[in-house]
């Protein structure tokens, strides 16, 4: 980073700290307080009580998730084993004639052996080489494969959390996204995922937490639904277990 830039950031930081007291003090004053409020009682935290009691059975969760995912234009399938899921990915990749595939650097995917099963496809593993420009690799990929961190049945949503081994680009830039959902990560409500995030230590908090509910879409031209505007237009949710 250039020296000049550093000084600007330092200078802005100084200004920000100086301004903070005035800015937030002004808010306190408008609210009729002399000093900034102490931690208030927080009686209405999160969803209403009746909602937090909702918990579906595993079969119900799977069925509702698949319905929701399909109703917004996604494809969903269910498998008993990872081996079956792998075969599905291999078949689709061959069918689509995928030349480039990028996948997260996750243990489940390392064990899958996609590389051997798709010898004609150039398969890259996210952030496996520090010299590589990984965003461009993801942008050039036909298919991105990831194992999700959680899924939510009620809304038909998957969540993917960023880390050195899990790029945000892998679920965003390729034309096709394939998301593997280990069945024990499938929850009924969003609140179950939120609880986990609220309970995290700062050091563990991922920089990017993404909730994805189907293919990228827009209705901006004459209300006409268009799929795949910026993000992947073809999305597969593969429930395993």
């Amino acid at each position: 980073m250039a020296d000049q830039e550093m000084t600007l950031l330092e200078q802005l930081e100084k200004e920000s700290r100086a301004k903070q007291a005035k800015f937030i003090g002004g808010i306190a004053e408008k609210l009729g307080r002399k000093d900034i409020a102490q931690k208030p009682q927080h009686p209405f935290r999160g969803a209403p009580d009746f909602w937090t009691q909702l918990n579906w059975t595993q079969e119900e969760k799977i069925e509702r998730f698949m319905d929701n995912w399909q109703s917004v234009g996604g494809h969903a399938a269910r498998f008993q084993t990872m081996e079956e899921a792998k075969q599905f990915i291999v078949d689709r990749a061959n069918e689509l004639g995928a030349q480039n595939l990028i996948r997260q650097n996750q243990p489940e995917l390392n064990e899958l052996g996609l590389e051997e099963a798709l010898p004609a496809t150039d398969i890259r593993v996210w952030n496996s080489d520090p010299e590589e420009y990984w965003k461009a690799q993801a942008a050039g990929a036909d298919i991105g494969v990831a194992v999700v961190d959680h899924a939510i049945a009620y809304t038909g949503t998957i969540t993917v959390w960023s880390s050195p081994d899990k790029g945000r680009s892998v679920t965003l830039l390729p034309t096709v996204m394939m998301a593997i959902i280990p069945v024990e990560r499938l929850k009924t409500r969003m609140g179950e995922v939120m609880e986990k995030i609220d309970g995290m230590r700062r050091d563990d908090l991922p920089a990017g937490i993404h909730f994805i509910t189907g293919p990228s879409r827009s209705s901006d031209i004459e209300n006409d639904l268009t799929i795949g505007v910026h993000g992947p237009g073809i999305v597969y949710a593969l429930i395993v277990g």
Partner: protein
Amino acid sequence: MSHGQQAGTVKERSHIALNNEFLRKAVKFTTERLRNGKKKATDEHGNWEEWRERGRQIRLHTIAHLDYYLNQFVENARANGVHVHFAADGKEAVELSMKIAASKQARSVVKSKSMVSEELHINAALEKMGIEAVETDLGEYIIQLAGETPSHIIIPAIHKNRYQIAELLSKEAGETLPADTSILAGFVRRKLREKFLDAEIGMTGCNFAIAETGSMVLFENEGNARMVSTVPKTQITLMGMERIIPTFADLEVMATLLPRSATGQKLTVYMSAISGPKRDADADGPEEMHIIIVDNGRSLQLGDPEFQELLNCIRCGACLNACPVYRHIGGHAYGGTYSGPIGAVLTPALQSNVAEWDDIANASSLCGACYEACPVKIPLHDMLVYLRNRKVEKGYGQTAEKIGMKGFAAIMSNSKRMRSVIKMGQIGQKLVARQGMIKTKIGPLKGWNSVRHLPSLPNQSFRERWGTLEQEVQASNPKMSDEVRQRMEQALEQRKNGGRHHG
């Protein structure tokens, strides 16, 4: 600070809209689609009133303790590695953005949809510095090419048809593109991919900011906000100071209310929570992240009992879709950054100068549909009345109206005066009344008679007829049966003795 006010009155601007047949149909179609979508989604979800109430409680609580929660957010965002800045007004926010952009020697900025950035007119400022500013939301990109402003908070290019869009995009492509939605969208996808990869800076708005974790949250369907917050090296987020909620648990409530109210979706395709720049070992995400917290008139509503709840707004647009006035005149007639019922209240409320208050507060039927639609129960129709009140109190009412009201009071408070005025009217109208109607547009009758006709005064007024009317009523009443009369008399007797009575 101007809020993008356009010239002319609401009436003049709405005439442009009313004359544009396509716009009217498009607005009607879109608002109905969104409104029906909302109804279906909320019915299916169930217990909607309980959710609304919970949403209101969370927003009320946060705003009532905004000093605490904003401070908490700032400290936590800093701990995540974010550079936090404060801007008292639009000018300061623009200056801060420009300083950051200049230090990065940026040539290009990609932007995802942000109403705050519309408030600040940041694109014009960037372009003045020779920096290209590219809107990347499909609708925003289209209206940027057309050099226009958004007409709907959720569907900004609601007023353009596919042929107009094809023409705009063809110019950009350097070849003729057919007016086919998927081809047009495909062109934009390719074109903007290049822009995302070229840009030094990504600029976003902020739907919610979470105090306990210092995260900012974006809701979107296209993926462009994810692009803007993933690809460029520097991210600048413009955030209204009231966007705060305490925890992720509270985000579940907002995520339940916002998409269902906006488009009828269970959840937008993408909901992203960004907590600081990329971690050292991450291979994507911004290396440097700035959040500019913007006041720009918002604090004027704090501590104001009539308008503080405006800060609860979650920018879903449901009030626009519910509003009979919006459906007829469209967004541009409102003349500010925000349109519809929320815009009618918010635009003047964000300005401190009463004299600049627009006449838009009068373009409302006060039917309350906006309140019914609002997922956090902001009483917008009441606020419109307060706004009219204040305008009159501060002396910005119409002089003619004031004189008229005084005269009316003088006449009505005296029966002799009333009688003679009616008599004068009955004689005077003989010049202009034809077949029971007055159609002339002279003097004070112009406004009324240009869209409808005034019925003439009857030859005999109600007051004049009262004497004979009373006799007629008496005579036509059938005689009361003895039994009923007895009961009535008894009841009357009881009341005299202090018995219970209704009401």
